[in-house]
């Protein structure tokens, strides 16, 4: 989808995970997601990129399919490799995002969110796999002792961590 009459088709299989370097570029119309993140047009020289911080970027980082896949991947990695306690796992995922350990307040905020969302997704009104699995009909195997609600809650928490200013901004 784009602002002009051009369409990019979603690649299938491993092609899907090639770097954006290989995304087709029209000279006068950058790929919409990159456009949102200030990529310049290809039809004039650019010596210094404009830098912006807009609600469109927030919407992309929150809701775009790639962002969701990333959040999901971080959630599963954290559940499988991030340690045994919630505290260990929060620290593990947080470090992967911002290269430092969370302080006590940050850790508390993330753990509180984890608990809250676990309850939400365990209430039977929401399908946790709709969030935690790429294909809700074929959910991946859970680590021993874990519940689908937990997987959904970790996806929410991972998505939050990936959307922090500190994760997005490199100063």
């Amino acid at each position: 989808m784009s602002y002009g009459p051009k369409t990019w088709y979603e690649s299938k299989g491993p092609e899907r995970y090639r770097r954006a370097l290989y995304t087709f570029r029209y000279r006068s119309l950058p790929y919409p997601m990159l456009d949102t993140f200030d990529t310049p047009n290809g039809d004039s020289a650019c010596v210094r990129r404009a830098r912006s911080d807009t609600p469109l970027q927030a919407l992309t980082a929150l809701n775009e399919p790639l962002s969701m896949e990333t959040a999901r991947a971080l959630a599963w990695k954290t559940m499988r490799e991030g340690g045994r306690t919630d505290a260990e796992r929060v620290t593990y995922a947080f470090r992967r995002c911002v290269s430092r350990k969370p302080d006590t307040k940050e850790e508390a905020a993330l753990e509180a969110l984890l608990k809250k969302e676990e309850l939400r997704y365990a209430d039977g009104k929401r399908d946790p796999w709709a969030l935690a699995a790429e294909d809700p009909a074929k959910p991946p195997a859970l680590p021993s002792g874990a519940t689908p609600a937990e997987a959904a809650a970790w996806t929410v928490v991972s998505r939050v961590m990936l959307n922090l200013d500190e994760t997005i901004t490199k100063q």
Partner: protein
Amino acid sequence: MNCQDNFWRGQDPKQISRRWFFEQCGVGVGAMALANLLAESGLADTPKGDPLAPKKPPLPAKAKNVIFLFMAGAPSHLELFDYKPQLAKFNGTLPPPELLKGYRAAFINPNSTLLGPKFKFEKYGQSGAEVSELLPHFTKIVDDVAIVKSMVTDAFNHAPGQLLMNTGTQIFGRPSMGAWVTYGLGNESKDLPAFVVFSSGKKGPSGGNSCWGSGFLPTVYQGVQFRGSGDPVLYLSNPPGIDADVQRDSLDTIRSMNEMRQGVTGDPEIATRINSYEMAYRMQSSAPELMDLSKEPQHVLDMYGAEPGKPSFANDCLLARRMVERGVRFVQLYHEAWDQHENLTKDIKVNCKDTDQACTALVQDLKQRGLLESTLVIWGGEFGRTPMVQGGSDGRDHHPNAFTMWLAGGGIKPGITIGESDELGFNVINDKVHVHDLHATILKLLGFEHTHFTYKFQGRNFRLTDVAGSVVDKICA
């Protein structure tokens, strides 16, 4: 922001980013001690004002909102507003050599034969404004607008021309007019961005997103691009598995963690990030409501020629009105299709058909709702077209020496035409209005003296008009 920006901006030491200080400049234990000193003296407090809070301009203002109908690609003044019988008479002959001295054209050899106007003109309204047969709708609002036939610019290619028209310079990286205005006046809408951009026609403008960039101004003043149909912006809907409650919980945590980080680093750009995320959340409900044209009565849709769900310049014009009603400060509509190097007769007709009715309806609609008084409407492109032919017998090249724009509402004197180009429409001979003068005038109408409206960057005060510009009093009511 980069390492030196804080200095260039001449920011209050309180606002200098400690993140920058610690992380970029490699300062060690001494800096830690300084941080303690700052904390004790209260200097490390983070300023948390809303950068988009509505502000009063320093001087009395006529206009509160701006709608800029940007006819990107540069429409031919000679086919639309600036009738030249002499050009018809000398059709097929070479222009006088003294006219071409020092003149540079983008593509053609300047010494090409003259091309007479392709369409008929007549005088309309009380004001007797001369308008081409291509703009039958516009003839109904000639008494509401001020036509400026004496525009000049410095650039003869699209990207630099559009940047000059939008940012006051041909170089990338300066703040756009919309960013300046938003910086000066803030946002009156809680649920929509202050500066919104639409794009219709064949492609986006050549100047790209720098046309609505914030340059060295804080990034919160950047224009936000909306799409003309469907989801107004991409990824507005929550992804599968995330409902409104989960989205709110997530944003609450993002916000509080960003605030914690801002408390530690003092980086003012984190405030922008927080604003962006909160605005994104509000737009998830406000934008679909705004974009839903199906609620507009049929006679209004007909007036614009708008069809809900079908992207068009007409839809964008109607959306612009709806945005101004909701307090959006600056709306810019790009329609990129006017670059008629060839097929002038056919293509300019298409463009006029796509835009004439909607531009006219916008002015009429704003007027009948009492919004025109406080809304400045601007129509125009980045330059004009050559009186000389390009590509056989039906095209014109880029021409910076003379072109036409019109303005309406927001303190503009209605029903007048100012300025004059020479007999061939080549050079301006009367009441020359440079792009800088236009900017100075727009700022005046919004309540700013353009020489005082500055932002310090790289050690000096910058203006939209940089070191030029004078207000065109003749078009101000």
